């Protein structure tokens, strides 16, 4: 590229992809920390496992494709993909599930389409959707905060000797919680069948959060009214706090101008408007409150982190807004009328389908083009101001 060096521009802002990706990872931290707090180490293990396999798969693919491994690994895009993928996987999912998903994401959805910048679909969501179709059971078994604790107690009740177990409410961040998470992720490491059985029995089976909470109103408000700490693990505020974490991360991205406001705003506004329109206070159980739609599930992650993945999103400004509206509508309709519990992945993939067409049809007006009317108006106003 040396011939390019002699051609303008000679100056560069110094931005690079690695910085962008790093900021993205940073912005994910508040949400991940909140998940960690409520769900225990499982989420962290997922991120680490996914990160490891993502890097391995990326290296292998770069090698196969004869690319400069050091250069392309340094862009950290594989890590971002891994993180986005892993935060959607239920904590306690076995390692092979995570590995399978991320390898599919990196190898098939990213590199087989031509690598960074070429993939028409969001790789993380491809991996996620693939798992959701192939392993629906594992993919929907979320620990709910209460159950985690109860699970531990249950184990205690089975007679595993822990000093003062009856009085102790174990935090998922405790050593035991860690051990539990490890064993769930790596079942082969368990010393006996009994361990695993004990733990898995304690899992909350397929409790879709959205249904779980549809009957009630905001747990945050409830917790506040009843004087419980928002961060207490019994307060059922988990998803809301986690979503607020991701919202903060998203705002950081906006502030750093890594993403533009168009997509997140369009998604959030659409979800809000549609859920308000369908919300009937008398029949909360079917559609859920607007608040629940925004903070009760993965809407914030989707709006700020997943739908904004630039490669697979619409790239023009008007296109981005339409893209956001499409995703917002899909999120709502899949959630409410569809048969899948998690709608963000499919909604984003559906948006990806539309993106190329949006880029073609929703283009900004080029400076000085298509102006005949505008010019006449300006001139007319100039005329009228003339003495």
């Amino acid at each position, binding site marked *: 590229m040396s011939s390019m060096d002699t051609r303008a521009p000679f100056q560069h802002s110094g931005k690079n*992809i690695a910085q962008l990706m790093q900021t993205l990872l940073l912005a994910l931290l508040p949400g991940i920390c909140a998940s960690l707090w409520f769900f225990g180490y499982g989420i962290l293990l997922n991120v680490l496992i996914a990160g490891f396999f993502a890097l391995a798969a990326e290296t292998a693919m770069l090698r196969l494709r004869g690319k400069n491994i050091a250069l392309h690994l340094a862009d950290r895009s594989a890590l971002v993909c891994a993180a986005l993928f892993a935060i959607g996987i239920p904590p306690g999912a076995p390692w092979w599930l995570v590995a399978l998903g991320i390898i599919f994401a990196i190898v098939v959805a990213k590199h087989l389409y031509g690598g960074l*910048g070429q993939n028409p679909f969001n790789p993380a969501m491809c991996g996620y959707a693939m798992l959701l179709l192939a392993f629906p059971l594992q993919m929907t078994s979320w620990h709910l905060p209460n159950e985690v604790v109860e699970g531990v107690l249950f184990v205690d009740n089975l007679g595993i000797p822990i000093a003062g177990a009856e009085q102790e409410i174990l935090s998922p961040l405790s050593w035991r919680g860690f051990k539990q998470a490890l064993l769930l992720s790596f079942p082969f490491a368990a010393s006996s069948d009994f361990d695993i059985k004990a733990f898995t029995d304690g899992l909350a089976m397929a409790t879709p959060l959205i249904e779980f909470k549809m009957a009630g109103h905001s747990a945050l408000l409830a917790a506040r009214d009843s004087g419980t700490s928002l961060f207490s693990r019994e307060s059922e505020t988990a998803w809301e706090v986690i979503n607020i974490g991701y919202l903060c991360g998203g705002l950081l991205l906006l502030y750093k101008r890594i993403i533009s406001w168009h997509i997140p705003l369009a998604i959030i506004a659409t979800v809000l408007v549609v859920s308000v329109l369908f919300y009937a206070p008398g029949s909360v159980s079917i559609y859920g409150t607007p608040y629940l739609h925004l903070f009760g599930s993965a809407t914030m992650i989707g709006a700020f982190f997943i739908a904004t993945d630039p490669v697979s999103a619409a*790239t023009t400004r008007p296109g981005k807004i339409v893209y956001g509206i499409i995703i917002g509508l899909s999120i709502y309709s899949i959630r409410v009328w569809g048969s899948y519990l998690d709608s963000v992945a499919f909604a984003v993939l559906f948006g990806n389908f539309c993106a190329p067409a949006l880029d073609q049809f929703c283009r900004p007006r080029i400076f*000085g*083009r298509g102006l005949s009317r505008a*010019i006449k108006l300006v001139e007319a106003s100039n005329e009228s101001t003339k003495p």
Partner: protein
Amino acid sequence: MPMPIPPQLQIPVGATENGTITLDVAAGDHVHKYQKLAQLQMSAQGRTCIPVHAPTSGIVSAIEEAYVADHSQQKQVCIVLTTDGLDTPLPLEPPVDYKQLTCEELVTAIRRAGIVGMGGAGFPAADKIDAAAHQAVDLLIINAAECEPYISADEALIRERAEGVVTGAEILQRASSARRCVIAIESSKPDAIQALEQAIEAQSHISGSCELILVASKYPAGSEKQLIQSVSGIEIPSGQLPAQHGVLVHNVGSSYAVFQALAQGKPCISRITTLSGQALKTPKNFEALIGCSVEFLFDICGIDKSLSHKTVLGGSLMGLQLPSDNAAVGKTTNCLIAAGSAELAPSADIQACIRCGFCADACPVRLLPQQLLAFSKTANNSQLLKHGLMDCIECGACDYVCPSHIPLVSIYKDSKAAIEARQINHERSEVWQQRFQYHQYRIKKEKDRAPTRTKAVPAKKPVAESGEAGVSVSSNGDEQEFFSKEKASREIAAAVARVKARRAGSKTATSEQDKSK
């Protein structure tokens, strides 16, 4: 700011492709400062001529072709002047009171002083006024918004000679009979703004209706059409000239040169040039004599010869790397950068486009650089045209922000060149195709004709005459067709010529738009 007189000057007159050069001096002649040396008569427009004057006194030692430190990248005819250091001027004509002159007289005076657009493209200032002469000029904008990083020549000029600039603006307003005159400057230059305010204040009682308008200093604020929009709200349609909409833009440098020409009677023999870069010990703005070499200027600024440097003409975003420092300063040389080894070397590895859209957010023309890139890669010309590649002003804003370090502007330049080449080829091949078809058609006609004729006129006429007879018999139908065909191909040839002319013209015109300030 004034500089010492270099031992030799290489005064560019113009490239021979651009017009006819008339020399008033020959090698060996002694010339005075301000003496007219030569002029370039541009072939395209009849009235255009750019005279060149001696920046100092001395002896003409040669007339040769050489590269000049400007954007033309062509060899230009240069008059080599060995200076005598005396700087003896011609007696200047006593400056006339420009207020007594008519528009035409003003334009003539501006033309005679050899003033060109000092912002970069070098379109003759007088022609610009002329081009707008047949319609009412509503707004004259004096462009003081520096286009690019590194360039500070205009700012320096304003800080030190604001009065001249304001007077020049007023003269230009008279010459173009503009209703309003606005000096547009970026809000980030408080010193220059203050100087201008004072100068406008000082002159307001004499005449002026000059206003000062601050524009946001968002690159490329000084780009002509963008500036017009931020000043007046008028968006000049793609492919049209500001003059068609009653707007004229002149650079502050031109405005000052006009002041010198009319208020002091001095032709254009120098310009303010920014000398910058890490390889220089004392970077500064100079009033450089036209024709002095880049090397000489760098020497004055204490270039560190032990370090390698790269010489860039113009700013860091739209500049041009000069192959050597021997080139001479021309009337449009606004900035010379002696970049140190680590400076102006965006070397980071190029990665794939991630479609982040930063480029689109930066583009002043609201193009979609990421889409243009994708279409350039596949050489999808129709989509490139649809997405406005030809409206790209090559400002480099997209390149600057691209996190993947993709050399977008270079790619667009190549695509543009490829499309233009294709168009020319296409037009040419159409002409040839027409000719070939006509040729075949004629042969076929001849063949068809032969038997009919022999039948119709059996033995009375010798075969040799049949050709003529045939023609006369069938003249009506055939010749009409012949002529319509011939006319068509002639029309096409004319169209090709027009396109070429337009292209040559539009090159100057568009680059004028982009760079004039």
